[in-house]
């Protein structure tokens, strides 16, 4: 508690946390008769505070803490995703708007314009070189997968680099966790698809507790060597989940982020509770999406419950 920065913002989000769904609320939603009943339960919980959207929450958080730069790191994955969308749409001569995700640090319209003009200088520093490299790669090879892996890897590197440069401990740990879970997934998929070492070197980013070279070598050695390597890292649980199923791994990754956010939300001041709140909102929205999709596909209660991510309450 060395600084009282963002005291107002943190207190405001503490009041807003009451409108977030708890585990008990999710159980009620799972047991609801249909989407209409679920919607009315959600509306009752929100008690007139309006629809919860990641974009709306982000805008509000930025209004409360406009000078909290480290928060922007949370949106790097969205920015880099939009870069992929914009480049591919440009190559395929299609409108990119439908493929953009929000919220973003870079205005999507501006992104399209700048990429169209090849004006990389006006892009933020963390994405500038990647945009130029990916454009060159895509126009030269027309290999979307290669460009995707370049951009994905650059996104993770940028998160880690900027978290280290101007972020607090929480955002650093967050960037590392996101990188590690993405690396595990990428290396595992590359292993299953028998991709070359060269490809893996371009696609795996590496982080403090998950060495890039070791992970690639483990993946090249096959399934047994891959999981034995993960057993020796702090991500042994991730390995066990991945061995079970991809869905179990995805749930582990999301739950690990929520566990990481747990102490951050207890802070009374600073950026961390704001970041934790945004993460929890995203987790809640993801849960609601999963619930809706499961319902549409007629999944039973047990399956839905199994897939539910950890929530705040």
């Amino acid at each position, binding site marked *: *508690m060395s600084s*009282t920065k963002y*005291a*107002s*913002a*943190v*207190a*405001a*989000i*503490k*009041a*807003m*946390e*009451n409108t977030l769904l708890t585990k008990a609320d999710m159980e009620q939603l799972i047991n609801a008769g249909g989407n209409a009943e679920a919607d009315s339960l959600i509306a009752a919980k929100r008690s007139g505070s309006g629809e919860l959207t990641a974009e709306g929450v982000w805008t509000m958080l930025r209004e*409360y803490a406009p000078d909290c730069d480290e928060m922007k790191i949370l949106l790097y994955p969205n920015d880099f995703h939009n870069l992929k969308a914009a480049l591919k749409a440009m190559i395929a001569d299609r409108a990119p708007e439908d493929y953009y995700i929000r919220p973003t640090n870079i205005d999507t319209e501006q992104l399209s314009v700048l990429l169209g003009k090849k004006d990389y200088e006006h892009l933020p520093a963390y994405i500038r070189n990647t945009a130029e490299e990916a454009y060159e790669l895509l126009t030269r090879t027309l290999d979307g997968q290669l460009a995707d892996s370049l951009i994905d890897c650059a996104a993770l590197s940028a998160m880690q680099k900027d978290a280290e440069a101007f972020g607090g401990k929480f955002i650093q740990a967050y960037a590392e966790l996101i990188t590690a879970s993405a690396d595990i997934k990428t290396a595992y998929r590359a292993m299953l698809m028998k991709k070359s070492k060269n490809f893996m070197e371009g696609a795996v980013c590496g982080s403090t507790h998950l060495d890039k070279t070791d992970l690639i070598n483990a993946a090249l050695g096959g399934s047994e060597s891959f999981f034995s390597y993960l057993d020796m890292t702090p991500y042994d649980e991730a390995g066990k989940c991945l061995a079970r199923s991809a869905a179990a791994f995805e749930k582990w990754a999301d739950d690990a982020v929520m566990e990481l956010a747990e102490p951050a939300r207890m802070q*009374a*001041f600073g950026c961390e509770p704001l970041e934790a709140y945004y993460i929890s909102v995203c987790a809640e929205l993801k849960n609601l999406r999963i619930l809706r999709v499961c319902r549409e596909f007629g999944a039973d209660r047990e399956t839905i419950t199994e897939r539910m991510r950890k929530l705040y309450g």
Partner: protein
Amino acid sequence: MTNGVVLAFIGAAIAALLAGIGSAKGVGTVGEAAAGVISVDPSKFSKVLVLELLPGTQGLYGFLTFILLMGRIGVFSGNIAQLTTAQGWSFLVACLPIAIVGLISGIIQGKTAAASVGITAKKPEHNTKGIIMSAMVETYAILALLVSILMMINIAI
């Protein structure tokens, strides 16, 4: 006016100033947090107001010390005692406990109360727990005030 009186005046000013600054900073911190909660839920105004008032007491203790010292040296009666330099120093030193502890505890109590605003925001039914935690910091400001008063009333004029 003797040097002793000037020193006593400096002591009184330090007590009122530092303790007042501590309170102002503390109340300001809680006020910021309280405003955040009220912007979302105005119905919690009365609950957060109690927390905002807590760090204000250090300023009062500083003011009380100032009044007591002024009374001791006869400022209110218009008959100011001709203090020696040693007596002046004694009064100045007597003012330091509440001045310093008031400054620090005011700021820290502000932080604690601001954190407790979070409790009020999320679990209003546990509001009193936040008040108790914030009030614990007050203990040391009260002790410092007692030390200052005891020192002051025992200085022979």
